[in-house]
């Protein structure tokens, strides 16, 4: 089982600057576990207290994982996963 994962610039220090890496997992959660095993520290940049971080968007093929079951979203061989930093902010001074 092989899934292509596209890595944004800000997380490439974890992947030796690779833009795209291969990982495996039957769910997004398992995929992140595998990514973190290959690239130590990457998991923590995606998860916080066991949930997806607010600042990060993850897509399976072209769909936001929030609409696919979040961490339980199923994956199959040949799927493509894209990780992007949210573009957001504003004058409000607390999150």
């Amino acid at each position, binding site marked *: 089982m092989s899934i292509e994962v596209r890595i*944004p*610039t*800000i997380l490439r220090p974890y992947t030796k600057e690779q833009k795209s890496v291969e990982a495996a997992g039957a769910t997004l959660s398992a995929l992140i576990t595998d990514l973190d095993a290959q690239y130590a520290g990457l998991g923590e940049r995606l998860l916080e207290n066991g949930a997806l971080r607010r*600042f990060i*968007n993850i*897509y399976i093929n*072209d769909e*936001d994982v*929030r609409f696919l079951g979040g961490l339980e979203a199923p994956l199959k061989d040949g799927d493509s996963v*894209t990780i*992007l*930093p*949210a*573009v*957001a*902010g*504003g*004058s*409000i*001074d*607390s*999150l």
Partner: protein
Amino acid sequence: MSLTISRAIVDAILEQSRVEYPDECCGVILGPVGADTPIRHLPMINAAHSPTFYEFDPKDLLALYREVDDKDEEIVVIYHSHTETEAYPSRTDIAYAGEPGAHYVLVSTREEIAPATEFRSYRIIDGVVTEEDVSITG
């Protein structure tokens, strides 16, 4: 470090800020990979529709990155407006800043300085904000 940008794009962003007032407006300026030159202005929808927060819709965000990749472009500038406060990155702006290679531009069209406006540019890397000069051409 500095940002060089055309007067036409600066004016278009300030106009967008006025049109979308009181909500914050947002968008990007794209340029060829590696050139650090903002050429193609692309206003984005503030999916938060808020006077104190902006966010690109996740679908728009993915489409943007796909388009940028396909055209061998990069996101040179990410901008948004502060409608009641100074054009300086808030803690929220810093927490979300996820593009270490981008110039983060903030504009302010707040009433207390009208008709003057602010158009300022920053690098935001690992939580550290560094203001840079803005040079406006032709």
